[in-house]
């Protein structure tokens, strides 16, 4: 299946799902993440491998990005979820893909996104008593030495 076919198949099943302009990334409203995940995990699409969850801070919103791959069918898909800075709660998919457990902890650690329903939402890279979320654009800390702009 080509990326546009995958995207079309998911959009045919869930009308609330959009496609990002210029790419084949699919944009899922955050309320639908669990049902969409459940659907694409199982045949016919069978995305059985969750590679990566990451985030991007775009100042007015935080994007959470899921990269999925189907080991049997050799194709992949990228899912984006837009979160407004006021409401950073999202349902955890760790019950669907086991690998989401640590990946979601990483996104929580670096961006402060709260994954509700996660079995063990602790920091994973930074020390447990760390303050703040380092990959946010507005992060700063007294030890940070700003690079002189030439």
């Amino acid at each position: 299946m080509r990326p546009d076919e995958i995207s079309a198949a998911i959009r045919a099943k869930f009308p609330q799902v959009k496609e990002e302009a210029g790419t084949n990334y699919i944009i899922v409203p955050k309320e639908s993440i669990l049902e969409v995940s459940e659907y694409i995990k199982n045949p016919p699409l069978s995305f059985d491998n969750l590679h990566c969850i990451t985030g991007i801070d775009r100042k007015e919103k935080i994007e959470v990005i899921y990269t999925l791959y189907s080991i049997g069918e050799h194709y992949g898909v990228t899912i984006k979820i837009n979160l407004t800075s006021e409401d950073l709660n999202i349902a955890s998919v760790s019950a669907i893909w086991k690998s989401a457990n640590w990946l979601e902890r990483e996104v929580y650690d670096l961006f402060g996104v709260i994954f509700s329903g996660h079995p063990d939402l602790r920091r994973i890279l930074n020390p447990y008593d760390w303050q703040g979320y380092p990959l946010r654009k507005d992060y700063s800390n007294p030890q940070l030495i700003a690079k002189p702009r030439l």
Partner: protein
Amino acid sequence: MVVIEKIPGAELIRKVPGGGFFLTTSESFLKWGKASSLWPMTFGLACCAIEMIATGAPRFDIDRFGAGVFRASPRQCDVMVVAGTICVKMNDCIRRLYAQMPEPKYVIALGNCAISGGIFYYDTYSVTKGTESLGIKVDVFIPGCPPRPENLLFGLMKLQEKIRREKDAAR
């Protein structure tokens, strides 16, 4: 007796004319022994550790300087080679390892990261700016990113020199 000039610390030893034995002070003998059996800790933090491992391998052979006995416990070590980037999460661990080493203990900061934070000096939230910022006194700094194994050997020889010049051998 003929090869006496070739052994490290030969300047500390005097031959008794015509005799089959030699004289030295217990002080300098102790220092010579200390300098010639520096046991490093098996402890690597990042890419520079690979250079330290290469130094231990046969091509560079750190054993020639009596420093090839990498110990797996800080309690048996004389020198801590801080080889690599010190992450903030590692701070307590390094302090604890250093505190566990018995006196006399020496520290070599291998690579720019261990000296000052190196390439991670600016705009990094997760890297400690060098070994000395942890309150650990460093004896030899070896710059480079990474330093070549020869540089580590040179630093080791400098440390041996430093030990042989120490005022108080029982430190």
